[in-house]
């Protein structure tokens, strides 16, 4: 499938490599540390587990207009997109490259920072740490969070979430720490994944076989109402790409207003939500939607993206 055909494809069904290729401009993607470099996990063979030449993540760089866009795209079909040592190191490497590109752009184009400012886009599809190499995976998460802070004030980091596995575990934190989050209704974002909640707290607390419950609690529509997701788009590659291009076209100082965490005021806002959750004691996500002004909460999950965007009332942001 070439770039043009990919644009009309379902984002949900795309492999990590296709997503990476199609998010940036046609013919501009260059994969770095790709399969030919055979950077496989040193830990999985010891456990008799299959390895992958890219360790489950596609990394590289492309262009959106004149702007270099550094891409990280996780493959959920390989061990659930879980982050091991090599996978994590490849992600961290992309951050380091992007930061160097920012310094270079400042040096070469001191008068036009907006035009040449690099960006990072992460197409998440992961359950977080790879338990087979958990210490290395955790360290990778810490390193990536550290590098994420280094990007603040320099270059935007955009999360796109619309793949089968969703974005959970430690990578849920990483996604939350980006500057902007784009999701499709099929995208899912959370910390503790549904299966783990059920395993730890029982089926009464959370029934992980209930697809609509999972969608209501972690899906794109809920995250959009709650303002955890900034842009909700259709499950189409071109829709994600258009959303990404629109975000990158914004002045950096405007784009960073999409952040959900990262300042004292934002932390205060999040703490207010915690207090609200305790006061409301909602039984279902629908109760929360109703609280934020969606009288017809039952109808929301059934609506197409366009209809949903037209009628959905979102939580008012304080910051």
């Amino acid at each position, binding site marked *: *499938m*070439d770039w043009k055909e990919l644009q009309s494809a379902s984002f949900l069904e795309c*492999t*990590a*490599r*296709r997503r990476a*290729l199609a998010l940036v401009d046609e013919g501009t993607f260059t994969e770095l540390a*790709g*399969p*030919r470099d*055979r950077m*496989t996990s040193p830990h*999985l*063979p*010891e*456990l*008799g*587990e*299959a*390895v*992958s*030449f890219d360790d*489950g993540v596609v990394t590289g760089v492309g262009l959106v207009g004149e702007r270099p866009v550094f891409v990280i795209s996780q*493959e959920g*079909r*390989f061990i659930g997109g879980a982050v091991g040592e090599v996978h994590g190191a490849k992600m961290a490497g992309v951050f380091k490259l992007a930061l160097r590109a920012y310094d270079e752009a400042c040096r070469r184009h001191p008068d036009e920072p907006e035009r040449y400012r690099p960006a990072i886009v992460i197409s998440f599809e992961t359950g977080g740490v790879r338990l087979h190499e958990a210490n290395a995976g955790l360290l990778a998460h810490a390193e990536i969070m550290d590098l994420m802070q280094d990007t603040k004030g320099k270059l935007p980091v955009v999360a796109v979430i619309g793949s089968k596995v969703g974005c959970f575990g430690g990578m849920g934190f990483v996604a939350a720490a980006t500057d902007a989050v784009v999701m499709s209704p099929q995208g899912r974002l959370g910390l503790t994944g549904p299966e783990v909640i059920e395993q730890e707290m029982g089926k009464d607390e959370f029934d992980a076989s209930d697809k609509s419950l999972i969608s209501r609690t972690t899906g794109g529509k809920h995250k959009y109402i709650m303002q955890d997701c900034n842009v909700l788009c259709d499950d189409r590659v071109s829709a994600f790409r258009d959303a990404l291009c629109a975000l990158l076209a914004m002045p950096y100082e405007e784009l960073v207003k999409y952040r959900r965490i990262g300042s004292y005021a934002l932390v205060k806002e999040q703490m207010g939500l915690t207090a609200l959750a305790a006061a409301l004691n909602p039984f279902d996500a629908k109760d929360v939607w109703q609280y934020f002004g969606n009288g017809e909460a039952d109808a929301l999950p059934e609506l197409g993206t366009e209809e949903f965007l037209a009628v959905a009332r979102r939580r008012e942001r304080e910051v």
Partner: protein
Amino acid sequence: MALRHLEFSYDGVPGASIPREWAHSGVVGSGDMEVLLFRREQQGKVKVKVCTPVVGFDHVWEKVLGKFVADSGCGDLDLEINDNNATPFIVSLRLRQALLEARGGES
């Protein structure tokens, strides 16, 4: 417990390689595999390396890969496979897809 590395060599058709120097295809999902293909001038030989967690199916690999080389009429290739419990049918399918993609240009 550790992963197994198998190597096979077949007589293919000289010159029946792939246009580019190398190509890659597939995802190591459960019951699936990926393959790296390299153009190599070696009197038509097709050499295959397989990395798999499965024990006791070496002769099946030899037959499935041999049939792929014979049926596809390929040659002058090195293949490297990462397998995750793919069935013989899936292996044949993925190899044919990989060769098609490598020859068709776009992935």
